[in-house]
Every structure is written in structure tokens, then in C-alpha cells.
């Protein structure tokens, strides 16, 4: 049976914790209101609506458990780190939960006291053992052990990150360090504090031995309040610095997940949704190892985690440098534990900077004189090769060869010079200007009566999919379309038995999620070998139009790094599905680089 030992239900040692807890709760409340006020009214409405939509509610609950408590994404990536994070997060959650359950069960009238469930063992004493009581003692000690094991890994990671599989970790700020050390201290101190009182308040396999040790080796073991003070101070310190450290991600993620699931766009660099994102960055540093620019040590400072830090600190000079340098390949975002929209943040920065500083207004009036396309019949495919493809004529030639072999009736959209798709303008922050190109292209396509728009450039494909809203037109990347032709039996290819490695272009793979269609088609014409890292972990070729300031000589190491990754299994040929990747790789590749359509055209079955 449990009985209250301290009848006042108060001791001054709880004050540091109460102060910290009150502060962090108040701070989070203010931040929440701030984020909600900063949202555009339409976005806010969308967010609130999503909170009462059943499908999003389910997704929110699932994500909250999987991401915040169990870190499923991290488990999939790295088991040790996954265990480390979920043991601390889930263990701590369970200790808090069990503390409350015990309070409800044994002394519900104290539940309104913020500190009571946390320091439950101090205030209670045990009178005779019950199965239920021992069960709680065991659970509490079990989760304490789980957390302590996680903390041990965290300490090892801080000093030797390679042991847990991280090449580079984030350089911590001073407040981050204070937060980190107080977090490390919390649970060992709790262990000692509960160990001291385990004799009167009960305990289990973790706390009883400590109690025994302390009582045998200390002259005055009854002076245990010091240990409880230390525990409370550690908690209080952690809570007080929390809003200014990376640990702000703990409360912020609870807001970020429903906002993300509501599908809100990033409209500003540090307001509304973006602010929630900045708060949610745990500074884990996964983005540092992910960044293809990391092949050069000087670029480590340009990883997303430092972008976030500079945005938080309102450092415009560094924020701009990082925002403009990025290749926008999206790999850091794909691997990010909180699914930070790293490219969206950078794009928002570029957009506001362009608007403020560019003094040469765009004038695309000349587009009005562009002749409309000829009227296409129902069956005709409209093929848009794009700007880059005109520098790699092999692509449009091969595409046409394959189309002819499959008996597809097609029309070229840009044989007399193309109007750019608009993505390069968009990536450089000139959103409104890009809109003008998009509108013109959209008008040309829709008026032609085409049903299928075939695109052979990953960059163009992404913007056609994301921004065009073409009515009645199916936009298809040639990898999808040719794979469909092979499956339908309209295109006959033979297997040349060459070993091929496929490079996932950033905009096609991570951008549009097309990974399987090109691979399926390539398996029909050769032997596909894997790259060291592929699919969502594929490495940018280095030629990306996403980067504005990266210089030619700094792109070369990225290209070489990507090539090393591709040639890990000694393929005879590298195959890519983007004219820019083709051109970039061709400069330095140790084995021939071919375009997807070129490989298909070389292996056409002669009728």
C-alpha cells in the first residue's frame, strides 16, 4: 500500500523544475499562437479543416506515434541511432505517463500539482507490498534502464560518431551544449535520487541496489534531499534552455506533423509554417552526410542544419549564401527525420531576395508572337524535348527513333526553338516571371488538343507535373511512356546483356517519385546493377540548375563523387534520364554515359 509521506505535499526542491516547466509551457503556447497568426488566412483555414478530417486525423495520430515516440524512420536508416532516440523519447514518455497513472491510482487529489507525478517517489512511502505496487516499481525501473542505455549511446556518439555510423555530426552551440549536458544528467540523477528513497518509498531492480549501496557506504544516508535537488535542478535547467536549443524539436514536432499533413506550403523563410519547421529541426546532422556538396569540406557549413540555424539567428548574409549555393537536389529533405522542406525554405529565401534586389524586370512580350502548334488528333503524342535536350540532340533523335519503332504518331513541340518550361526561373526565385512562361506553354499545349505530353527532361517533367495543371493532358516522362509501350507489347526490344547502372535524376526520383519505370524498362534491354546509393539516396550529378552560385570548379568534385557512387559495381555503361545529368557526367565519366532513350534505341528489335 502507498501512503503519503510528506503531508504538505511540497518541498522547496521542486521549485527549479516547476520554474522550468512553467517557462517552457508558456513559451510553447506563445510560439503556437505566433505560428497560427502568421499563417495566411487560407492556409489557416486549410489547417483547421485538416484537424477535423478523419483521414488526416488518423495520419496525424500514426505520425505522432511513429515519428515522435518510436522514430520509425530513423530505425529504418540506422538501428543504433533509432534505438538511442526511441529509448530516450519513449522511455521518458512512459515514465511521465506511469507517474501520472500512479498518482491517479494512489493519491488522485494531488494530480493538479505539476510536480507531483514527477517526484512521486519522494512524497510517498510504501506500507506493505502489493502485486500492483511492485508492478509499477518494476516498470519505472525498467524504463529508467531503457533511457539510461540510450543516454550511454548518446554519450558515445558525441565523442566517436563513427561508431554509430555518422561521419559528421552537427557543431553544437553553447546553449545546445547546456541542454545536452543537463539532459545527460537528468536520468543518472533520478536514479540516485530514487535510490536514496527506495528504502522507504519502494523500488525495483535498479533502485534497490543503489539504496543498499548508499546505505552501506554513507555515514548519513538520510540526507537524501541533495540528490532530489540535483535531479530537480537538472530538469529545470533543461526545460529553461529548451526553447533556445535543438530540443525545441520535441514540442515543435507535435505542431509540425499536423501542419505537414495538412499540406501547407512554405511561403516565408521564418513565418508561419516555416517557423514551425525551424523550431522542429533537431540538428541531428543527417543532412550533413546527405549533402552531395559535402565532398568538399568547405561546403559542410552549407548543410540544411546550418541554414536553419542562420535563419533562426536572422543572419541574412549566411542565409543568402547557403540558400543560393544549394543544388536543390532534395536529398537532405528526403532523409530528414522531421521531413524539413529544405528546398522550400531556400526557395522562399531566394524569392524574397530576388523581389527586393533585382532591378531588371522581365519582359516576355515576345512570346505572344509565337505561333500556335498544329492541331493534333486524339492519337497524337506531343513531344517536348526542352532546352537542355537541344544541346544533347542524341536524346530527341533516340526518342523519335523509339517512337517510330513503336508506331506512335507524334508531333514535336519545340523544333523551332523552345520556350523554357519555367523551372530554372522558378528555382532562381523569379516566381512571377516563371508563371508567364508556364501560362504560354500551357496555352500552346491545351490548344493543340494533345492528350499525351511526352517529356524527356526530368527538370521540365517536374514543373509540368507540379505547376501546370494541364486539363485533359497526361504528362508523361519518357521513361514511364516507353516502359508502358514495352508492357503493352507495342515496343519490341532485345536484351543486349550489357551491365547498366541507372542514375536517378533528382527531379525525377526524389522530385516526382519515379524510380521503378526506368528500371523495369532497362531490365528488358540489359543487366541492371545497383549503385552504392540509389533511389531516394541517389547523389546529384553536380550540374543542377538549382544552384545559383556554385562554380564550375566546385561542381567537378560533386560529379566525380556521384560517378564513384554509380560505378561501385563496375557497370559497362551509366544510364541516366535527364539531359543535364548526361552532359555533366559525360565530362568526367570513366565508362560511357548514355541516355535512357539512346539505350532503348540501340536495342530495338528489328521487325
Amino acid at each position, binding site marked *: 500500500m502507498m501512503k503519503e509521506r510528506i503531508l504538505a505535499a511540497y518541498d522547496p526542491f521542486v521549485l527549479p523544475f516547476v520554474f522550468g516547466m512553467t517557462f517552457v509551457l508558456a513559451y510553447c503556447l506563445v510560439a503556437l499562437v505566433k505560428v497560427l497568426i502568421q499563417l495566411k488566412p487560407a492556409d489557416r483555414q486549410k489547417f483547421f479543416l485538416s484537424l477535423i478530417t478523419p483521414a488526416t486525423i488518423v495520419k496525424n495520430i500514426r505520425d505522432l506515434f511513429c515519428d515522435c515516440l518510436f522514430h520509425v524512420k530513423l530505425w529504418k536508416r540506422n538501428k543504433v541511432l533509432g534505438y538511442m532516440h526511441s529509448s530516450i523519447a519513449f522511455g521518458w514518455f512512459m515514465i511521465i505517463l506511469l507517474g501520472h497513472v500512479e498518482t491517479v491510482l494512489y493519491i488522485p487529489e494531488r494530480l493538479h500539482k505539476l510536480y507531483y507525478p514527477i517526484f512521486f517517489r519522494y512524497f510517498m512511502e510504501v506500507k506493505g507490498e502489493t502485486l500492483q505496487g511492485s508492478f509499477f516499481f518494476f516498470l519505472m525501473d525498467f524504463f529508467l534502464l531503457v533511457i539510461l542505455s540510450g543516454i550511454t549511446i548518446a554519450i558515445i556518439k558525441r565523442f566517436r560518431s563513427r561508431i554509430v555510423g555518422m561521419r559528421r555530426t552537427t557543431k553544437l552551440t553553447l546553449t545546445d551544449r547546456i541542454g545536452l549536458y543537463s539532459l545527460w544528467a537528468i536520468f543518472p540523477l533520478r536514479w540516485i535520487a530514487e535510490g536514496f528513497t527506495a528504502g522507504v518509498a519502494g523500488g525495483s531492480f535498479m533502485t534497490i541496489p543503489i539504496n543498499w549501496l548508499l546505505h552501506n557506504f554513507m555515514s548519513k544516508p538520510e540526507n537524501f534531499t541533495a540528490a532530489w535537488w540535483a535531479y530537480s535542478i537538472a530538469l529545470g535547467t533543461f526545460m529553461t534552455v529548451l526553447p533556445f536549443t535543438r530540443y525545441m524539436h520535441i514540442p515543435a514536432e507535435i505542431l509540425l506533423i499536423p501542419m505537414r499533413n495538412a499540406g501547407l506550403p512554405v511561403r516565408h523563410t521564418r513565418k508561419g509554417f516555416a517557423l514551425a519547421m525551424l523550431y522542429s529541426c533537431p540538428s541531428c546532422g543527417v543532412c550533413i552526410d546527405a549533402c552531395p556538396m559535402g565532398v568538399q569540406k568547405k561546403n559542410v557549413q552549407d548543410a540544411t542544419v546550418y541554414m536553419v540555424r542562420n535563419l533562426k539567428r536572422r543572419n541574412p548574409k549566411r542565409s543568402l549564401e547557403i540558400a543560393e549555393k544549394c543544388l536543390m537536389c532534395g536529398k537532405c529533405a528526403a532523409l530528414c527525420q522531421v521531413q524539413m522542406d529544405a528546398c522550400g525554405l531556400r526557395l522562399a529565401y531566394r524569392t524574397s531576395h530576388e523581389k527586393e534586389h533585382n532591378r531588371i524586370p522581365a519582359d516576355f512580350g515576345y512570346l505572344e508572337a509565337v505561333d500556335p502548334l498544329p492541331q493534333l488528333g486524339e492519337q497524337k503524342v506531343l513531344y517536348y524535348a526542352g532546352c537542355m535536350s537541344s544541346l544533347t540532340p542524341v536524346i530527341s533523335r533516340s526518342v523519335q527513333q523509339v517512337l517510330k519503332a513503336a508506331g506512335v504518331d507524334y508531333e514535336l513541340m519545340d523544333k523551332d526553338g523552345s520556350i523554357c518550361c519555367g523551372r530554372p526561373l522558378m528555382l532562381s526565385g523569379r516566381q512571377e516571371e516563371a508563371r508567364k512562361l508556364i501560362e504560354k506553354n500551357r496555352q500552346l499545349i491545351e490548344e493543340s488538343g494533345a492528350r499525351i505530353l511526352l517529356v524527356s527532361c526530368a527538370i521540365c517533367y517536374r514543373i509540368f507535373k507540379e505547376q501546370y495543371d494541364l486539363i485533359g493532358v497526361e504528362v508523361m516522362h519518357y521513361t514511364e511512356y516507353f516502359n508502358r509501350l514495352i508492357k503493352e507489347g507495342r515496343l519490341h526490344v532485345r536484351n543486349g546483356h550489357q551491365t547498366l547502372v541507372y542514375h536517378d535524376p533528382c527531379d525525377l526520383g526524389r522530385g516526382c517519385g519515379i524510380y521503378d519505370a526506368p528500371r523495369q524498362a532497362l531490365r528488358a534491354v540489359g543487366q541492371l546493377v545497383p549503385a552504392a546509393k540509389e533511389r531516394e539516396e541517389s547523389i546529384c550529378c553536380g550540374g543542377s540548375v538549382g544552384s*545559383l552560385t556554385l562554380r564550375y570548379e566546385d561542381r567537378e568534385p560533386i560529379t566525380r563523387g556521384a560517378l564513384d557512387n554509380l560505378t561501385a559495381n563496375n557497370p559497362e555503361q551509366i544510364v541516366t534520364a535527364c539531359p543535364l545529368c548526361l552532359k555533366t557526367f559525360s565530362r568526367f565519366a570513366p565508362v560511357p554515359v548514355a541516355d535512357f532513350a539512346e539505350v532503348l534505341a540501340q536495342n530495338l528489335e528489328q521487325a
Partner: protein
Amino acid sequence: MIDFGYGLTPSATLKIEKVDNPLFAELHRLEPDVTKCIACGSCTASCSAGVFTEMSLRRVILSLQRGREKETLPMLQHCMLCGKCQLVCPRGINTRHLILSIGKVYKMEDKAL
């Protein structure tokens, strides 16, 4: 001085004192590649906007170096930033950033052309 008839015609004379060097120096600070140009014209030959307009990056760079930016700045209004010039440039000039930087350093006069 005696005019022997071999001097420059006034229209071909560059008046160095009228060249706004600080602006060009600022541009060079933002994008050092600007001085790398050998005026080969590859950019102009491959230009997407050049199909429809008189856009010529080669001419823009030359005119900036000569301090006669007013003649060519309006051309940049037509640029679609597609980046083909960057791919073909034999000197590896970051042309897209150069064009964006020009827009930040130079101000176009409203009725320049």
C-alpha cells in the same frame, strides 16, 4: 595635334572617364567569372531567348566591360535563365548567376531602348 587621318572615328571612341567602373567592380565582386569571358559567342548561339529576340549575352558582357550597359541591359529582360549558355561556355562561366547579379548591380532605365 595634326590629324593624319588614322584616328578613331568619334562613334567608335570609348571614353574611359565615362565608364562606371565601380559598378563593374561590384559585379566582379558578386560574380568573379565576368572577366573570364573570351567573347566566343557560344552563349549567344545556344540561347533559347535568342531564337525569339536579339538577346546576346556576349554583347551584354562586352558592353558592361566598356561601360555602355544602357545599350544592352534591356536584352536581359528576355532571359529565361534556362542555363544552356552555362552548359556550352568553354570558360565555365556561371552565366545564370552572372545574369542575376547584373540585375542586382545595374539598374535599368525605364526607356533605355
